[in-house]
């Protein structure tokens, strides 16, 4: 396969279509609008439907309807728009419908800014909507990984009958990098015999629903959901780590921020510092176990994010108090520099290598 140069947002669209997604419901918002634009251009060519909804709220509910009707379907938005979709996401999780959600994050709170940010870590991993639900949240660091995880995400969604989110930021959405569209490995996915497609007078009606009015029924439903989430935790957790068994300091960072951390680590190594990296690829399930492999004499963990400290909560849970955990972040659309990260790593070193 040959490489093509693609903008992150457009690469998402191309990957989704390759994954067999035929339906896209969305609403314009910067910095992800190239994706709906791409889908409006490309989906009709494959017999699919792009529809610009009247709002993000409507868009996610169209996704609910289409997913319940058995389609491979997705929506995308950016932070404030994603906030509006939370109602539908909770219903989708409750009704156990598969779909792919893309959030190309921008600065917040409120209308915030349009510049890259990672402020929706809590929203994505803690369940922005109501109720005890979970979903796999991918945090790709480059456009190739973005493409691979979009394709993977559709399969995971179908496999678990659950929404899957790809969480990027304005930087990965806007940047161009070479990508290769590999033929995805075919999975054995369950038949969608639960979908509403008309009974055809051959079976009892299928019902897509998240309402369980009897307490004992809803509890049973929740217990079933939790068992599913546990299985996702056991099998779908992904992480990249670098040199953590030997490191004096370990940086924890995800998405585009991890690339900046890598640049910082390369510079630090030239100066003789031993710095490792843990890069969660899934933010949920979180790779807690990876932190157990860290050099026991490590001086500390530096969490780097483009927000004011959200993933740091998971890092603290992961290290179980064994290492001091510190934080460096920029927000509002400001991007951390490698030099600033280097300075913070050196602070943890306390002056001596």
């Amino acid at each position, binding site marked *: 396969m040959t490489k093509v140069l693609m903008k992150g947002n457009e690469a998402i669209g191309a990957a989704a279509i390759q994954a067999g997604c035929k*339906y896209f*419901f969305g609403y314009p918002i910067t910095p992800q609008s190239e994706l709906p634009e791409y889908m409006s251009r490309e989906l009709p060519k494959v017999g699919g*439907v792009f*529809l610009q*909804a*009247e*709002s993000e*709220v*409507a*868009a996610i*509910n*169209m*996704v*609910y*309807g*289409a*997913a*319940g*009707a*058995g*389609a491979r*379907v997705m929506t995308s938005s950016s932070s404030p728009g994603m906030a509006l979709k939370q*109602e*539908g996401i909770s*219903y989708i999780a409750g*009704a156990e419908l598969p779909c792919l959600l893309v959030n190309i994050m921008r600065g917040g709170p409120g209308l915030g800014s349009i510049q890259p940010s990672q402020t929706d870590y809590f929203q994505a991993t803690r369940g922005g909507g109501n109720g005890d639900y979970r979903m796999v949240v991918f945090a790709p660091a480059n456009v190739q990984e973005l493409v691979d995880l979009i394709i993977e995400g559709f399969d995971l969604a179908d496999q678990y009958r659950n929404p899957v989110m790809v969480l990027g930021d304005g930087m990965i959405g806007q940047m161009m990098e070479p990508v290769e569209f590999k033929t995805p490995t075919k999975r054995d996915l369950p038949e969608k015999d639960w979908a*509403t*497609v*008309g*009974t*055809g*007078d*051959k079976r009892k*009606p*299928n*019902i*897509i*629903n*998240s*309402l369980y009015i009897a307490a004992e029924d809803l509890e049973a439903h929740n217990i079933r959901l939790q068992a599913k989430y546990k299985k996702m935790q056991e099998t779908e957790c992904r992480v990249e780590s670098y040199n953590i068994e030997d490191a004096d300091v370990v940086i924890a960072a995800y998405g585009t921020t991890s690339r900046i951390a890598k640049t910082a680590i390369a510079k630090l190594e030239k100066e003789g510092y031993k710095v490792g990296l843990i890069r969660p690829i899934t933010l949920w399930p979180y790779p807690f176990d990876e932190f157990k492999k860290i050099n026991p004499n490590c001086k500390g963990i530096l969490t780097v994010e483009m927000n004011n400290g959200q993933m740091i909560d998971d890092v603290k849970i992961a290290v179980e108090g064994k290492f001091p955990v510190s934080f460096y972040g920029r927000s509002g659309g400001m991007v951390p520099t490698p030099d600033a990260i280097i300075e913070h790593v050196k602070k943890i070193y306390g002056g001596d290598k």
Partner: protein
Amino acid sequence: MTIVFEKTKGLTDVQTHYCPGCTHGIVHRLVGEVLVELGVLDKAIGVAPVGCSVFAYNYFNCDMQQAAHGRAPAVATGIKRVHPDNFVFTYQGDGDLASIGTAEIVHAAHRGEKISTIFINNAIYGMTGGQMAPTTLIGQKATTAPLGRTEEHSGRPIKVSEMLATIHGAAFVERVAVNNPANIRKAKKAIKECFQIQLEGKGFGIVEVLSTCPTNWGLTAPEAMKWLEENMMPYYPLGNYRRPEEVE
């Protein structure tokens, strides 16, 4: 023995939860009968709202989805775009459609979405216990309007059919009532015409049904019918507001 009447196959055998004297049951039957008579029950996909008719997914004998409050037209849009050859309808109350779901219903009509909507207007929030709806009449008491609705505080009740009839994509808009056998027959005729319009691919259709809520109105069933005739029908005139031939 000849069977002169039987329950429509358009409805399941489940006993409904509706209060005595509530007209949801009548409208359910009409919808079920029309689905069978048009021969679309096997390809029908219905969308239930939030409100009294939330359990409609247990009553209609076809594939059903339950939607978030007010979002049924969006959910139906998602279904219809995936399965354009299926018959897709929503069944919504006035809190669901005329309050929280105004954007969704207006834009489904605006797009000329090929779905059909049954809109139950009983001038009150039933499920949550009698709160004021956008359709509650001036002077009508509700648990959130204990002295009665005033125009100064809450505006005049919204007229959904008249509003949607101004939208080009709405190919069929009719207001009916189910207060007596004659009107029930008319209501069924309207529902059938509305559904046919979807089958012919002509656009969006809605039937607004003036209904009773004896429980939350604090009336007996016969009193409620009378109240509907004397209070709702003058403010919400019955009749057709739009047919495809009026859509140029």
